[in-house]
């Protein structure tokens, strides 16, 4: 029988191994997934229930339920990451065990993000189903639904750089938990409730610089017709966020894995 010897697994297999491990753990973190699902559904129902009639005074071109569904999706996918699991791995020493393997250091982060992509898609589907139940329809058809979920998932993964950067920089679960506060300006200083035109001056100015504004516009366009310019702008907004947040996360990763 030949002796078993270690050899390079390859970058993609490293990513797949870390992602598979991370995905396998998702059902074991039900206490974390439960609230992540409850909050967007809650906001969707409450926002529609309380603001639907008021929204009639604004220049919203679609049904208010459809107007709110992208907001719920953004709530579902933003800041929902495996960063908390990663920081626990750092604290419990499992991260050191991974560091003692020849795994590509970038794969450590990309594997977690691949799992995040799966997670945010899993979270988006029930929210979209609730949307269907309350009467939201996609004139862009089934492909519109798929694009809707994919754009949301891309946004979710782009945002993960922030909690991962905090996790890797601090190694502190409390700091990672607190990072949800960073989501507030993104989520509320935008067109969550009314269009930019209906906002007061300062709020409209901030909303115009908030990438979520363009994300929401792209997602909402799918309730009207295929509007490639809106979809393009939403992808640019996602790319801009990804550039900033993932630069932070990979810089934090380099700091964490460097021999000190």
């Amino acid at each position, binding site marked *: 029988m030949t002796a*078993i010897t270690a*050899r390079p697994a390859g970058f993609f297999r490293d990513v797949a191994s870390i992602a598979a491990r991370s995905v396998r*753990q998702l059902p074991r973190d039900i206490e974390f997934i439960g609230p992540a699902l409850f909050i967007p559904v809650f906001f969707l129902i409450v926002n529609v229930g309380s603001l639907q009639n008021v929204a009639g005074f604004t220049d919203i071109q679609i049904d208010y339920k459809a107007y709110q569904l992208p907001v719920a999706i953004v709530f579902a996918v933003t800041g929902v990451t495996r960063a908390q*699991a990663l920081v626990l791995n750092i604290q*419990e*020493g499992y991260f050191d065990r991974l560091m*003692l393997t*020849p*795994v590509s250091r970038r794969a450590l982060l990309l594997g977690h993000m691949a799992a995040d992509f799966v997670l945010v898609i899993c979270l988006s589907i029930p929210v979209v189903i609730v949307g269907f139940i309350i009467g939201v329809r996609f004139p862009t058809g089934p492909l519109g639904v798929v694009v809707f979920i994919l754009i949301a998932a891309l946004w979710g993964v782009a945002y993960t750089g922030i909690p991962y950067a905090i996790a890797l920089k601090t190694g502190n679960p409390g700091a990672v938990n607190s990072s949800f506060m960073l989501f507030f300006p993104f989520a509320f200083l935008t067109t969550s409730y009314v269009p930019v035109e209906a906002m007061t001056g300062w709020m409209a100015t901030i909303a115009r610089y908030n990438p979520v504004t363009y994300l929401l516009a792209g997602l909402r366009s799918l309730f009207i017709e295929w509007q490639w310019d809106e979809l393009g702008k939403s992808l640019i907004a996602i790319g801009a966020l990804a550039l900033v947040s993932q630069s932070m996360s990979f810089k934090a990763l380099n700091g964490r894995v460097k021999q000190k």
Partner: protein
Amino acid sequence: MATARDAAVRAQGLARRFGDLDAVAGIDLEVEPGEIYGFLGPNGAGKSTVVRMLTTLLAPTAGRAWVGGVDVVERPGDVRFLIGVALQEAGLDKKMTGREVLVTQGRLFGLTRAEIDRRIDELSPILDMPALDRLVGTYSGGMARRLDVAAGLVHNPKVLFLDEPTTGLDPPGRVRVWEEVRRLNEEMGMTLFLTTQYLEEADELADRVGIIDAGKLVAEGTPADLKRSIGIDVITAHIDGDAAAAMDALAGIEGASSVDQFGSEVRVSATNGGRLLSPVALALDRAGVSVRELAMRTPTLDDVFLDVTGHHLKAGAT
């Protein structure tokens, strides 16, 4: 002397400073391929810091080190293919099953699933096989410790670093790890670098022992040679009262190779301790020294430790 290329582990002036603290203050050591090297020292002596430097987790502030002839700072990625490691704190994810830990570990070392399954079978003597599909969070400390050791072995490393592998294990668990260490060394020719604070563990397992205290390597050799350096027999007298009077009484006693005092313990080393036992008792009695306990034994590594550092390996040890 072996060169960096043919030694399994070699350190040259290896040092690590944390702020003002010299955790490791320039260590030279060499471990031959196929050797079990015991790194013995009390808590805080610098054992784990040395292991973390040799296993690429921590950069030295001075000196160099090689594992399998590969520089740990210049080529850490290559070193990782050669080594298996079980650190002092079991590095496990509580939300994974034991099998998932081993499979993930194997995959990251490029093993196929069939190879990983074969290795799990081969490692079954130290694993709790019935518990392998349970979450690690449900494991006892001993089970987790053995899984951690097994995780360090999945990829069949050439050099295995075990940082206090039996700390926290019950006696049967400790014996299982010892047996596996011996088997790995004898059947597979694996080199083992083992840190421990247990004298009997170093004595039982190690071909050679390095004694570290306050970041410095203070003695090195086979357990037998180290003990022989103390003398063939050791007579220890635990006294109440004036230790200086006891030392005066025993000074120049015929047949003693050395007389030392460590707190309330006076130690006489001799090539024939049996013949010296009565003269020692009489000398102390004549000097009016109250003797609480007088005993003769062969030297232990703790005697060696006491000899080279001036204190016992463990506080309160006698």
